[in-house]
């Protein structure tokens, strides 16, 4: 889950061959590509703020039980004493107090703060793992298509076209809905099944976006001098792929992974909103929003999960943008 944060460090380990490729830069600055990127990133205050928020979110998600223990109540615990039973809305409008930081849900009075905090776990877990899946498939397919060319390229590229043409949201709704009914056959149940399904659906159908970019990069990389040099020295396919080409793809992979995470956060929220996500009573941001729609007279119910999604997506996007500016040598600053 911490992969994006290690970004600057990992880039610093780029093998010497790759650095040789950027020899012009080295001659002037005397620094490695990773060092340059890190320097640029440090200057980008907005990206750093984004990174800070992302770190905070991850800490929140991991330590949710601790936070809730101190500041809230168990996320599924009812507090009907907080509800006005004639209108089913929280007493006093929102129920916000020192005891309930974000107020309570209408109808059953569950602690909104605890549910938003626990919601972060589901959202980030699904978004990050789905992104990982997309990246793994996308990179493998992209590299193969770009490196081997010919019929392999044709086959993979057309497959990507087919995947891109899928009405993803509609398809995901159908798939999650249908597969969710075959619990005994799949051998897992409840939240585990749902989370797994969502990760699979979101991750598996998003890989062509990253696959296309990787294919393009590979196409240009395999014609570069250092690859020719390696080949003329007798290096074979696997060596060239893993030692020459892949290390040079780490920058675009990192950038697009960071930018894919917020998309997936939104996608998971959309699926939960439409009712095919995680099942009750587990808290998810999208699921809370979908419930809140019916209670527009209790605006705080929509505000807090909505803000959580907004902040998460914004933070990841800002950080991703900054990372791209820092890693991509072609960006002019």
């Amino acid at each position: 889950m911490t992969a994006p944060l290690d970004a600057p460090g990992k880039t610093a380990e780029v093998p010497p061959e790759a650095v040789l490729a950027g020899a012009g830069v080295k001659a002037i600055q005397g620094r490695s590509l990773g060092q340059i990127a890190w320097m640029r990133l440090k200057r980008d205050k907005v990206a750093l703020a984004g990174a800070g928020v992302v770190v905070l979110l991850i800490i929140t998600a991991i330590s949710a039980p601790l936070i809730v223990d101190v500041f809230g109540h168990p996320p599924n615990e009812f507090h009907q004493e907080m509800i006005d039973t004639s209108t089913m809305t929280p007493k006093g409008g929102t129920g916000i107090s020192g005891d309930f930081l974000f107020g309570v849900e209408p109808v059953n009075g569950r602690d909104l703060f605890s549910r938003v905090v626990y919601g972060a776990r589901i959202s980030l877990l699904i978004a990050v793992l789905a992104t990982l899946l997309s990246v793994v498939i996308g990179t493998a397919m992209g590299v193969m298509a770009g490196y081997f060319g010919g019929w392999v390229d044709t086959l993979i590229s057309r497959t990507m076209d087919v995947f891109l043409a899928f009405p993803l949201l509609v398809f995901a709704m159908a798939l999650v809905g249908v597969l969710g009914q075959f619990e005994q056959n799949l051998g897992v149940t409840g939240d585990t099944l749902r989370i797994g399904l969502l990760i699979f659906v979101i991750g598996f159908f998003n890989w062509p976006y990253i696959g296309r970019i990787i294919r393009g990069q590979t196409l240009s990389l395999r014609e570069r001098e250092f690859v020719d040099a390696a080949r003329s020295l007798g290096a074979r396919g696997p060596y060239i792929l893993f030692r020459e080409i892949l290390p040079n793809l780490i920058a675009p992979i990192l950038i697009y992974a960071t930018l894919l995470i917020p998309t997936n956060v939104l996608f998971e929220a959309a699926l939960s909103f439409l009712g095919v996500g995680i099942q009750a009573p587990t808290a998810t941001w999208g699921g809370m929003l979908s419930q809140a729609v019916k209670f527009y007279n209790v605006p705080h119910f929509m505000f807090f999960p909505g803000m959580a999604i907004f902040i998460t997506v914004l933070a990841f996007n800002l950080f991703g943008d900054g990372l791209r500016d820092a890693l991509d040598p072609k960006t002019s600053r």
Partner: protein
Amino acid sequence: MNKRSAVAFAAAGAALSLGLSACGGGGGETTPADGSSGAPAAAEAFNAGLEAVFNPSDKKGGVLKMAISEDWDSVDPGDTYYALSWNLIRIYGRSLVTYTPAPGAEGRKLSPDLAESLGESSDDGKTWTYKLRAGLKFEDGTPITSKDVKYAVLRSMDKETLVNGPTYFNDWLDLPKDFKSVYKTPDVNTDSAIETPDDQTIVFHLKKAYAGFDNFAALPGTIPVPKDKDTGVKYREKVIASGPYKFDKVEPGKQYTLVRNEHWDPATDPIRKALPDSYEISLGVNADDLDNRVLAGDLHIDLAGSGVQPAALGRVLGDPALKARADNPTGARTWYTSIMSNVPPLDNVDCRRAIIFAADRVGLQNAYGGEFAGGDIATGLMPPSIGGWKKLDLYPTGTGDVEKAKEALTACGKPEGFETVMAYRADRPKEKAIAESLQQSLGKAGIKLDLKGYPTGDYFALYAGKPDFVKKNGIGLATNGWGADWNDGFGFMSQIVDSRTIRESGGNYNLSITDKEIDAKIDEALLETDVAKRDAIWGEIDQRVMEQAYVLPSVWSKSVLVRPQGATNVFVTGAFDMYDYLNLGLE
């Protein structure tokens, strides 16, 4: 009674068979309890329209504006199973008898409409005769005869063409075997089921006696349909009116407008006032927008009659001025949770009782919307407006009694509790809230629930209503709800407690009750001709259901309705538990 009424948003047609026998065979005279005939008039206050007529008047004119957030099945009298539709249909169609336009329980009594009087039975309740009034005409001026009524009833039975609506006539009329439908076998002689000796007389012949046949005669299926104008399923686009209004514009899914039918003769109709000049009915209006427009006064009636949305609820109950415009009727509908008696360990009655003891009954009430929008905490399966109802006091109705639950668990041999699966309709937020509430309260007694949401559309056909799916998935609890077609034990209970209605192929509404004693009592009730004794038997069945803990009742449903501004003769009819649409007028 069957599918539609279980899924319809407020399908609760109702008529008191007690009341029926009181006026059974009586003359054609009724006293409509409206303003003009001296019924009590109500001042503006909460529940003012429940037991009295609010703002009575005889002033004619104006356009009555109605709207609904979705659409209902059909305006065709032979093809509809929504309470709102059965209520509205009476402005353009006249059935043999209908519910008296009067507030409260009086509205459950039947009045003759096309017929001169309520049905006269002979042959020990197997034959029912009605005489039509003289001078009845369709909107095109042709006279209405008993043959039009007969044709309408026969066509309403073709559930392959007209898929919506009850099947009472199919189940009870003594039809010849070779009769399939008026469309497929138009030439088969059906006199063994319905006879029309002359143009004014219609005689129904039943397979077995049924003392409550007037309830059948009140079904929209008896609204006459001229055979030469019938276009099967397309008849809904051009319904021929027999009541005081006829369709002017019909835009399916968008709007209907109705204008006066000049061939309707008030002299033939003692119950209708026909006050507005026209009706405007808009379909597909956003539900929240609709509430706001009713509150603001630029719309008169939310046709659905199922109460305001949660957002408007807060406004209405929070503001004394708005609350004074609201009514809070109780419907003949129970929301409950079926406890599967064939899924271990719930095959043991003590384990089932433990669930009822542990359940937070207030939490369940809140899940359905609280005391006003949800309903009163139910102590039995049968709602209070059903004949034979008695108050049961077998379980506490507080926030859950963990100790009693533990005792019951010990008696059941599971002192540490057990795990089971709870099914609910995933796209119904209230049922989701029920499942979440039970998971919390049962958890305190050691009963762990695994919640599973299933799609509403196939809930009964493929999931909770399919016995082998329930067993295979170990579903111990399932949310459920039922509304009466009319207010007697037969009209409410027969489909949900009789084990012989359970089909292995699925589509069951009785999810959990397989009890030989109950089956025997049902048979006893069907044969019993004395109404008081019959009602008492249904009361005993209700008690047996609760003693054996086959269901965990949540609420007897209530709704918050807002009286229209500027409208007259506003009251809640006990027949449908929504505003009576028959005699509304404008100031």
